């Protein structure tokens, strides 16, 4: 939806999202520190250690939450609004993680004749052992990735790198998460005495994995349907015209992870590629608003008849041909070049 690149601008919903997130983070840090400082004198950590633990655990929880949003939104569309502004969530996590690292460096690695950053990289070299491994370096690796992703989160970078490369780069969030899990497992969790983190960390990591498996299983079911469709040569039966509600779509999976969204706009049916040009959002889960197909993720819009974003925007989607046979709609799985105008198929909602 843009001439050059499209920053998804500020709006009331984003402000609400950021304020809610900011409040949750502030509440977490404040309560954590109040509880930890209230411990008995002999059982109490230093103020500096309390702060580094508060920020570190907060960043871990935020990162876990971020990784749950994607699969949750695939499994249940009610989570889509959370996905909408996920990038701000990520940038905020990066700031919290930087505060954690700053406290560590200004306490554990300060007060020495050695430069703190040199000390961070050199004062533990027990690489050959698990218990005693320099777990800080795993934190450093995770923080570098988080910082890189936060710095390239703006739509400018999406446009500059092109969506596939941007997406590939941002998949490294999973490597960062693995580093953080190892960072905590080989550091704070190896303390023999019991602590809530012994339960919280595995629970978060397992939830992240389980949700991804569930979303993958759902995708595999869709792909099986796709294989069946693909075996049919030529036109594919996709269902009865009356099965598509006004302003809504059905999604027809094709081969190669490609899908088609068939939308109804009043009496007219049209078919366009399902993947949004912005970040591959599932257009078929969107709606027609003001006559345009609207992406459920960030609201990019396209005309149903030619797959083009309305001017002045320039995004174009592939369109597909439809025909009707005895009340059934049939789809030609061969895409038209992006932006090709296709005459809408006339099919009243209620015959």
């Amino acid at each position, binding site marked *: 939806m843009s001439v050059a690149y499209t920053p998804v601008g500020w709006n009331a919903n984003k402000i609400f999202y950021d304020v809610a997130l900011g409040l*949750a*983070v502030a*509440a977490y840090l404040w309560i954590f*520190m109040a*509880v930890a400082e209230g411990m008995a004198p*002999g059982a109490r950590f230093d103020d500096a250690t309390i702060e580094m633990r508060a920020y570190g655990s907060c960043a871990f929880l935020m990162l876990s939450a971020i990784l749950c949003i994607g699969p949750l939104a695939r499994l249940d569309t009610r989570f889509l609004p959370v996905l909408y502004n996920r990038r701000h969530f990520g940038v905020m996590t990066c700031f919290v993680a930087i505060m954690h690292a700053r406290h560590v460096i200004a306490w554990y690695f300060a007060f020495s004749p050695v430069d703190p950053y040199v000390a961070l990289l050199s004062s533990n*070299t027990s690489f050959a052992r698990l218990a*005693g491994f320099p777990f800080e370096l795993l934190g450093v690796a995770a923080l570098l990735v988080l910082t890189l992703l936060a710095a390239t989160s703006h739509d400018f970078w999406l446009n500059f790198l092109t969506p596939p490369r941007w997406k590939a780069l941002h998949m490294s969030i999973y490597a960062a998460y693995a580093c953080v899990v190892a960072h905590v497992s080989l550091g704070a969790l190896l303390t023999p005495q019991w602590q809530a983190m012994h339960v919280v960390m595995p629970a978060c990591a397992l939830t992240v994995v389980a949700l991804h498996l569930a979303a993958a299983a759902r995708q595999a079911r869709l792909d099986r349907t796709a294989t069946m469709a693909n075996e049919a040569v030529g036109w594919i039966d996709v269902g009865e015209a009356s099965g598509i509600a006004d302003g809504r779509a059905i999604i027809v999976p094709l081969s190669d992870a490609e899908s088609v969204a068939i939308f109804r706009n009043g009496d007219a049916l049209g078919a366009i590629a399902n993947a949004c040009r912005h970040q591959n959002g599932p257009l078929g889960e969107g709606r027609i608003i003001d006559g345009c197909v609207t992406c*459920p993720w960030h*609201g990019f819009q396209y005309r149903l008849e030619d797959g083009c974003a309305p001017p002045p925007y320039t995004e174009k989607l592939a369109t597909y041909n439809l025909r009707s046979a005895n009340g059934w709609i049939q789809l030609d799985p061969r895409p038209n070049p992006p932006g090709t105008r296709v005459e809408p198929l006339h099919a009243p909602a209620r015959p």
Partner: protein
Amino acid sequence: MSRSDFFVGYLPASRALRRTAVIGALTLCGAFAALAIALGRTPADIGPSDYGDDIAATGVFVAQPYPLLVTPPDAAHPRGRTLLLGGEGKRGAQDFGRDLEGRVARLAGILVRRGEIEMALVSAADQLQRVDTPTSGVQTTSLGRWRITGEICDGKCVAGGMRPGAGLAHKACANLCTSGGLPPVLVTARPIEGRNYLLLAARDGGAAPDAVADLTAIPVTLEGEVMRLGDMLILRADWATARKF
């Protein structure tokens, strides 16, 4: 879901969506608050420490393996009181008392203490001054060969310089302290001759070797000769035979 329930970020949200969003936001804040209470409750579990009392003492200065001050016996310390000396931050006290070996010195420093582990901090030359009192020096006696299990910590942090000052999360920090000249100590799993920690030394009685860095913060077994100096035990360890778990 009606059209008005469909969320488009840049359009005003419907009432139903706004309600869901507020409930979602409250759930997030509530979950974070509950987790903060659970995670904030982790204890440091190493016992109370004191940091900052002034200490004044007069005794014999010993430079090896690490700077120490041994005061004459009194009612509370029938063998004499042996204080670990440390410098500012992560520095040992090696810069002070260079010409004091075996002589009497007057200390005016700051005490850090956890249980029987005591360190006096010195940050200026006038805090450790020579006194012209004649002395016959101090006696180091051997208690024979021992094999001892415990955790190697740096003597300043485990005395209360940082809390907890022990454990793996603290390993790199402890290495930085010992490489800065602070004395490594073995906090023992069981009391040895009534003491819960030993000062660590090289086999020849000098400072512990750099290899100590690989052994900090984990359970280890060290073998060597245990020496008594005042009320302190010193382990002159065979570093090559150290066992890690």
